């Protein structure tokens, strides 16, 4: 059997965090009661006309620049015509053959390997309204009695990002998407909240004999609303296509629906004339002619992006690529890390604490980096206490947990709970003497050549001191007592 390789492309939609909608001045809100944020424009009343939100253009251009696209000197809007209850004009104002930006690339990491993907285009459009299906199988179209439309979301600025089919594996697709999401968040143009559907994606995938330069027929995958589902859906689709081809069949250009329950992809009932969108230039809007100085102004004020930051962390703090990517992934986390280091704690131990205890804490508490009771000052103090041997690493974790529970400074906690490391020789000698005296059998074994028994003695001493004994000193004293 010959080997097959997948070729994957992604199409992403991102809702922008502008204050108002793409073509009207209704506020963009989340989780509000239905139909409180509408106007003649976003309800498509007769005679209403669209007017472009200037901040949406700026945000879209920022995304395009971050993806190394060339922002086009002239771009226009088109009407994309189809009927659906969530599309009030029965056309979506979108961009077609003259989009905002084209020809970009995006670099992302899969483990220690840097991959590149070409970006076909970045364009602006408007989001659809929210549909709720009532009756029947709760929430599904099939079998529902009727549906309800809430236009609060309708008309929210939406950016479409289309990649070329350059992604070599399902895992890479997941990484691409996660890292691209981080980038958009970093730009401050969208929170990309997944529960709110602020970022959504479809994938297209084909397979070809390994090493071939030709593209096979692709299928389009939908309904993958988590990173994991994206990877699973692609992983399920590869063998399905390979099986068909190896059996002498042909892949149909079709849209498949991923079912997270079964982990498989099934063809979507093909909508009739789904592809006859009758695009034509939107006569209600005039062209956008982009001033190169404006683009340069945006470029000069772009925030530091995750990939660049990871590079900087590697050189500035001598971090591994993996650590630098995690710590550099978001502005908030990176800022926190750098603040702790700036307070005098070591870059490597701070990295370990931040990625270990701290991230776990953030996740558990649902906090964003920089918030909560574990402040940069407190973490810096704790790391220093461990570094100078005042507390052991294991006690340090205890201190960390108590910082959250007791909302106190680490040194207070060490004091309050007696968590300081025992390095007092007389106390340690006494403990060693007691353990040796209490366990003659083990002493016999050790002296008979069974060196591993040393661990038993260390354990006994740690047990007796609540884990606070300085392990190095304990080791030394034990050897002296047993060997001597």
């Amino acid at each position, binding site marked *: 059997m010959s080997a097959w390789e997948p070729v994957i492309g992604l199409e992403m939609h991102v809702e922008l965090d502008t204050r*108002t909608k793409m073509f009207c001045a*209704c506020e963009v809100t989340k989780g509000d009661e239905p*139909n409180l944020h*509408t106007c003649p424009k976003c309800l498509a009343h007769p005679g209403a006309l669209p007017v472009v939100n*200037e901040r949406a253009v700026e945000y879209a251009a920022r995304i395009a620049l971050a993806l190394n696209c060339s922002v086009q000197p002239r771009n226009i809007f088109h009407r994309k015509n189809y009927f659906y*209850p969530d599309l009030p004009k029965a056309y979506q104002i979108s961009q077609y053959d003259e989009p905002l930006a084209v020809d970009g690339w995006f670099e992302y990491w899969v483990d220690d390997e840097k991959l590149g993907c070409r970006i076909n285009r970045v364009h602006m459009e408007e989001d659809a309204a929210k549909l709720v299906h009532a009756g029947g199988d709760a929430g599904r179209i099939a079998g529902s009695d009727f549906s*309800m439309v809430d236009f609060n979301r309708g008309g929210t600025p939406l950016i479409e990002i289309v990649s070329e089919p350059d992604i070599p594996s399902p895992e890479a697709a997941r990484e691409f998407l996660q890292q691209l999401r981080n980038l958009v968040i970093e730009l401050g143009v969208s929170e990309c909240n997944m529960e709110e559907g602020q970022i959504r994606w479809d994938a297209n995938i084909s397979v070809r004999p390994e090493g071939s330069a030709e593209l096979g027929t692709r299928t389009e995958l939908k309904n993958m609303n988590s990173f994991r589902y994206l990877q699973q859906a692609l992983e399920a689709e590869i063998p399905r296509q390979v099986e068909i081809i190896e059996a002498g069949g042909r892949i149909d250009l079709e849209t498949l629906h991923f079912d997270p329950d079964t982990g498989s992809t099934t063809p979507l009932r093909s909508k009739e004339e789904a592809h006859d969108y009758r695009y034509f*230039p939107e006569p209600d809007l005039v062209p*956008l002619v982009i001033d190169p100085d404006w683009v340069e102004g945006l470029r000069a004020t772009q925030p530091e992006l995750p990939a660049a930051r990871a590079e900087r962390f590697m050189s500035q703090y001598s971090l591994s690529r993996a650590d630098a990517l995690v710590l550099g992934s978001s502005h908030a986390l990176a800022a926190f890390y750098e603040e702790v280091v700036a307070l005098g704690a070591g870059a490597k131990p701070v990295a370990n604490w931040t990625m270990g205890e701290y991230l776990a804490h953030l996740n558990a508490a649902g906090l964003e980096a920089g918030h909560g009771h574990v402040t940069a000052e407190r973490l810096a103090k704790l790391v220093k206490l461990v570094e100078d041997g005042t507390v052991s690493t294991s006690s340090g974790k205890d201190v960390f947990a108590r910082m959250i529970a007791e909302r106190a400074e680490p040194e207070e906690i060490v004091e309050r709970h007696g968590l300081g490391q025992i390095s007092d020789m007389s106390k340690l000698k006494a403990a060693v003497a007691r353990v040796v005296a209490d366990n003659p059998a083990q002493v016999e074994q050790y002296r008979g050549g069974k060196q591993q028994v040393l661990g038993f003695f260390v354990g006994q001493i740690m047990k007796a001191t609540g884990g606070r004994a300085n392990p190095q000193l304990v080791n030394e004293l034990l050897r002296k007592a047993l060997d001597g």
Partner: protein
Amino acid sequence: MIGEDDVRYVAKLARLRLDPDEVARMAAELAKILAHIGKMSELDMTGVPPTAHVLDVVNVTRPDKPRPSLSRADALRNAPAVSDDCFRVPRMG
């Protein structure tokens, strides 16, 4: 040349229910109109740019500043059917 199948296809795209008489009549009328329109193909339009807009105006945008929306009552005032403060449509399946 446009035929009844074309009219049916297009009517479907445009979500227009036409009865068979209308389809037949429209196919005949459209054939005539399109024949007239076909006159355009007499012209050599090599190098002629399209005019989407007569206006010599670009970059008309608005600031990202919210303005009051309609009240929900006004938004729903003309709705043929309402459920739970939403516009209600027949089952889609």
